């Protein structure tokens, strides 16, 4: 395979990773707050549809805003049903996903009946002609990207900063690990969880809109193709940390980009193999990281307990243990 192809694959990786990173940042907050949003796929596809629709009316920026708004509305509904009316969050999440997949197809067909030409909107494309984009290899990969890719990177850093440097970030961690103590400390558990979920919904909607408005320019049913689930996998792989989410998203996006572009090379495999490759590898990585996480979790919960008990005893005894 030629160098040009590799450049194209890597440039495609960043472009494909952007929606995953955006939705992943949001889901990272949700999961660190001890909740899970299985409706992410539905929120993304609704965001994708509304992005194209609003984009066709008022341009791509309005499309992105519409994506955010629709994701936010779905998350508000989910928060209401799950945390106010106490429905099961797994079932409701899956329901939101199914609703999103079905409703987006239905609305799309109302908007553009079959037989008519699909609407294409202007996409937010990379400038491509900055001075740095001229650098061979690195230029097109790093500096020729769509502004949305840079937006994803900026939000990644912002998410890290929010987690580390704001009270909200601390509250999210507290609520996720120890809601009882957090409540005793005066944190409003429900409110923090709801904020995280709304943030997750808004970013999932944005991620969906980025798929359509950012790169493709049009909507087709099932355009998200399971990316919502991939986001969940990426967040779990990355342990809800921004850097982990970024790495997970890049891995999946690379495989996807590789599968798309290497089909045109001399390596001839059935295209289905290429298409399933990203999911297969994600599955394997997920199993590997989960195992190491389980081990870490086990150590974290068991070992300190034992040590604490021991420490307390040592202190109480005032003597060093002989063994």
């Amino acid at each position, binding site marked *: 395979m030629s160098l040009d192809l590799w450049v194209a694959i890597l440039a495609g990786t960043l472009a494909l990773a952007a929606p995953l990173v955006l939705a992943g940042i949001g889901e990272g907050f949700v999961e660190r707050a001890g909740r899970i949003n299985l409706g992410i796929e539905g929120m993304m596809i609704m965001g994708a549809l509304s992005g194209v629709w609003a984009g066709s009316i008022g341009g791509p920026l309005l499309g992105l805003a519409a994506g955010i708004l629709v994701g936010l509305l779905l998350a508000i509904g989910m928060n209401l049903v799950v945390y106010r009316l106490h429905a099961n969050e797994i079932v409701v999440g899956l329901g939101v996903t199914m609703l999103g997949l079905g409703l987006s197809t239905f609305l799309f067909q109302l908007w553009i009946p079959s037989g008519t030409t699909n609407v294409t909107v202007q996409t937010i494309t990379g400038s491509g002609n900055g001075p740095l984009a001229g650098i061979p290899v690195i230029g097109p990969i790093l500096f020729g990207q769509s502004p949305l890719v840079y937006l994803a990177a900026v939000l990644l850093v912002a998410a890290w900063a929010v987690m580390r440097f704001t009270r909200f970030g601390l509250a999210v961690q507290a609520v996720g690990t120890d809601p009882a103590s957090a409540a005793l*400390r005066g944190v409003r558990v429900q409110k923090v969880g709801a904020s995280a979920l709304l943030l997750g919904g808004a970013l999932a909607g944005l991620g969906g809109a980025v798929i359509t408005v950012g790169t493709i320019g049009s909507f087709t049913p099932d355009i998200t193709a399971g990316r919502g689930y991939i986001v969940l996998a990426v967040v779990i792989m990355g342990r809800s940390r921004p850097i982990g989410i970024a790495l997970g998203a890049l891995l999946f996006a690379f495989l996807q980009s590789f599968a798309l572009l290497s089909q045109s090379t001399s390596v001839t495999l059935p295209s289905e193999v290429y298409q399933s490759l990203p999911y297969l590898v994600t599955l394997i990585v997920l199993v590997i990281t989960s195992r190491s996480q389980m081990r870490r979790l086990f150590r974290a919960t068991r070992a300190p307990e034992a040590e604490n008990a021991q420490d307390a005893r040592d202190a109480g005894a005032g003597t060093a243990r002989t063994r």
Partner: protein
Amino acid sequence: MTLSPQEMDRVVLARSISKNFGPVRALSEVSLTVRPGAVHALVGENGAGKSTLAKVLAGIERPSAGSMTLGGSAFAPRDRADAKNRGINMVPQQLSLVGELSLVENYLLAGRRRLANRRSARALLAATLERARVEVDLDAPTASLTQAHRQLGEIVVALAEGAHTLILDEPTASLGPLEVGGLFEHLRSLCALGTAVVLITHRLDEVRQVADDLTVLSHGQNVHHGSATGLEPAEIARLMVGELAAPPPRAARTPGEVVLEARGVVAGSLRDARLDGVDLTVRSGEVVGIAGVAGSGQNLLLDVLGGFVKPERGSVTLAGAPAGASAAGLLRAGMAWIPEERSEAVVPTMSLKENLGVYATAIGAAAVPAGAPSAEARLRAFDVRPAHPELVASGLSGGNQQKLLAARELGGDPAPRAVLAYGPTQGLDLRASQAIRERLVELAAQGAAVVVASHDLDEVLAVADRVVVMFGGRMIVDLPVGEAGTERIGRAMAGLAEPAPAAAGPATADPAAAGSAPADGPTPTQNQGDPE
């Protein structure tokens, strides 16, 4: 109590506070004055209303009637945060530090600023630590701190939040004696800085140690309010529970055949000292007390006796159970077990009745045999409050959960053949403790072999016929209680007493060898004659 003008502007006055929970009257017309710069002890039996009163002061519960003032102006906190803003903070019994976050982050968590400035928060906490002369790691996740440090950390965070009145709900319940001493020093130095401390406790000797003022609650009513100086623990106890019957004289019991026996047990665990060849024989009708500072191996020994830990070498036999029986096998053969952590034995999500019947369910006994006492009767027999069989166990206070556990283990029918109990009266008030101890002795009188371990030496001495002291995984003293003075046992617990015999293994626990230290009076002889 007379108050100086300086004290007046921060004094917390509660007048005729009442609190009802449904039909239950938890507090009835209780008045209280908390002076700045003083430790105010709040004592009473389980369920006397101490925690409720504390929660009212801290804004967690609202009083049904009565009023409070703070420094002369009305004080009616809407919630805990409101009370906190006025400078009254409570350190609850169940600590409220988030385990994954450090103390600095826990402090920031409840702050008012949106941005978390770690550096300034750290500086503030460090300064507070220094003032209070405490050393706690500010940057480690609090889950990795010791219980005592978490307790101190919680206090330090409260102080840094600007508390001038601190309410501590049983801070010493899970601390060892040295840690308690350290905590009290810190409290005293805080008082010297003008902080008021309300200390809820069960341990009456602590009142004498540290308290300036004392409020005694009994059944939701204030039965004493005033200075703590000059009050002996016995007098306080009388105030709390009325006249307490003296423990019945120890009836002489002749030990019968061997019921429970451990031979040459070698076992290891992460949580406790490694057992290094322990022999223990418990006869029918005998109460053996195991003393030792925490971590000396007594916990592991009880686990081995109960069949929860398989010894690497040696054997445990219970009369009537097959050799090497599992914990379930021992249970069927009549072993009762009260662990140190009651959470290991009480299922919080099950009802009281289900908790009482949990073994029958596990074994598969279909129905309660006819004529067996009802769940309610069993609960009443152990004074579990409320004795409501359908109540979920997590709804009980800690002390009442302990009583529930005792009701299941000690109040079953048929009576247990052997009892293993670690700190069976922890968290219980005097009357309930005495009832449990009497029950243990009664079981022994009916022929059970009873083993009681505790860090509380008084508890061991109160029930045991024979006292065994463990140190570093070995049994270093085995004496009849008559010869086991507090001082002698105390020295042995510190590992000071008899020098360990040169040969390790079974000889370690040989009573003759262990008891024959030259410095320690006459050689005990009562166990030498026992056929092994």
